[in-house]
């Protein structure tokens, strides 16, 4: 359901070595994948490609059976809004919205995800509240100012925003780097629960290899990159 074939990506045409050079990558629906690698190995670029923010210089990227590198900009935007939930390293919550409003924002630009959200709850706000509770954020915290929440609590809001409307793909870009070790494992388990409940594919990026054992599949980007690296 995620397929990369001969994907080459360069930021500039004159760049000697491509930033991304992946011959083949397949990820199945519902898989929980741990993607790791040192800084600068192209993780962020790969995520941009997977989210359809950037398009490969060469090669094909198929998401849910659609070659997204062939879609127009606006169609890629729509595809992303409908099918991809993104959790950022630094959460990126809007400070002037409450946790509930931040979460509902996740499905307000997509009819598809609104429809999905309404399958679980009567209103999207109720669905946001349900997700926040499931991720361990109490009712009384759900209407507070985002800035008053702890880092762990903010991360739960960011996760709920990615999960609302059950997108098929959840991309988490180093979401635990701001958490301490104990909270990291607990947070990852919460992500698993939600991803399994929605049958979403979870692509979890981290350089913290202690989390690797929790995942069914682990991909080293360094090994994935280029023919030579993979043979090592």
């Amino acid at each position, binding site marked *: 359901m995620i397929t990369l074939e001969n994907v080459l990506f360069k930021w500039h045409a004159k760049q000697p070595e491509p930033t991304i050079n992946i011959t083949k990558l397949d990820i199945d629906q519902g898989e929980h994948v741990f993607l790791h690698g040192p800084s600068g190995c192209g993780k962020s670029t790969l995520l941009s490609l997977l989210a359809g923010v950037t398009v490969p210089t060469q090669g094909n990227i198929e998401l849910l059976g659609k070659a997204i590198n062939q879609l127009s900009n606006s169609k890629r935007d729509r595809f992303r809004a409908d099918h991809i939930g993104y959790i950022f390293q630094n959460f*990126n919550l809007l400070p002037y919205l409450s946790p509930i409003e931040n979460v509902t924002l996740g499905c307000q630009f997509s009819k598809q995800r609104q429809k999905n959200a309404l399958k679980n709850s009567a209103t999207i706000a109720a669905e946001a509240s349900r997700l926040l509770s499931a991720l361990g954020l109490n009712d009384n915290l759900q209407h507070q100012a985002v800035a008053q929440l702890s880092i762990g609590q903010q991360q739960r809001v960011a996760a709920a925003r990615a999960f609302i409307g059950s997108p098929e793909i959840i991309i988490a870009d180093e979401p635990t780097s701001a958490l301490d070790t104990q909270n990291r494992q607990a947070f990852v388990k919460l992500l698993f629960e939600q991803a399994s409940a929605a049958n979403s594919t979870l692509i979890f990026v981290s350089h913290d290899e202690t989390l690797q054992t929790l995942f069914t599949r682990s991909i080293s980007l360094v090994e994935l990159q280029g023919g030579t690296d993979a043979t090592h």
Partner: protein
Amino acid sequence: MLLIKLATKSLLNRKASALLTLFTIAISVMLLMSIERVRVDAKSSFSNTISGTDLIVGARTGDIQLLLSSVFRIGHANNGVSWKSYQYITEQRGVKWAIPMSLGDSHKGLAVLGTNKDYFEHYRFAKKQSLSFSQGHEFNHLFEVVLGAEVASSLGYQLGDEVVIAHGMGNTSFHNHDDNPFKVVGILNPTGTPVDKTLHIPLAAIEAIHGGHAHQHEAVQADANDHDHDHDHDHDHDHDHDHDQHDDVDLIGTPKQITAFLLGFDSPLYTLQVRRNINQYKDEALLAIMPGVTLRELWEMLSIVEKILLLFSIVVVLISLLGMLTSLLSSLNQRRRELAILRSVGARPWHIFTLISVESLLITGLGCIVGIALFYALMLLGADYLQSHAGISLNIALLSSYELMLLAAIMVAGFIVGLIPATRAYFYSLADGMSIKI
């Protein structure tokens, strides 16, 4: 809906700068609206001041000066019209009525006009409306006074009160004629013209209050008396006053000269002919003006000032919109992160574009609403002052279609100005994608 909510919350998050921008626009809207309202009302006040009068005659001076001194009570007529000339001219063929006007005295800073009873019958303002009494009646005796509406209301005078007339203009006269109190016998309905601020007394009383002058005129009185004015009804002797100079109470008297007079003709056809005769009158340098024409000239003269005022207020509105542009553009850099977040949750570039446009519309719209509120507050506060100091009666009514058009123009201008940061945000969001730079 979502974008309006987001724009509102985002603006509230930046209250200080948003409010400042809003108030800049509000103040500029207030300024523009006030200037326009005063301008329009001044114009109608001006042109409503006098009507139905065919000619105003005074000593030779500028047309506008004569109009200002005789009708608006602004400035002084240096010379007057001799009573002889007045009598000669008013006997010409076609003259239907004549209102002599003797100005120059005051009561607490308000003009005192010595005139005859024709004034109440023939003076017209606005659309040929005649003067009417809210209380009492016209003067029938020498020491009686008819008050303009505002004189009565601002000084709190009622029928039967006694009023002292001072010689000369201004609040502090050299000598008050305490011994010559006038009895209030009538109060006029408001007209929105300088009539409201005038005390009307019989022409003869003007001389009576200047005791010394009256004696000098006694000689003249003898030969003037045979012209006896038939519109004067009979007058009882007014024994309330122990002055001796007017044993035979006559409301006109025999003044040496008057400030000006108004003429009405049987037919407007006489107007040009008589005007020419007056302007070429050999015995005295006189000037006759047609009030309608001179009012228009006066207004045209003022219209330069008026246009400059309008120009300034438009510039002020533009500056305030540029202020909005500056604050939106400078906030945009800080908000790239916010916009990128919106993009990451699925907002498309045109959503971002709309969001910023909605923001500028909200600021402009609220600015207009607050500006209108300030405008009405200013009008309510300033109406009395303008009425009493400039004779402009402000019309504190709902917004006219012209004013609504001005507001619409400001909204459109605000929208257009808002397109600049919106376009910029659009391209930011295309370039940034989801990568959050700040």
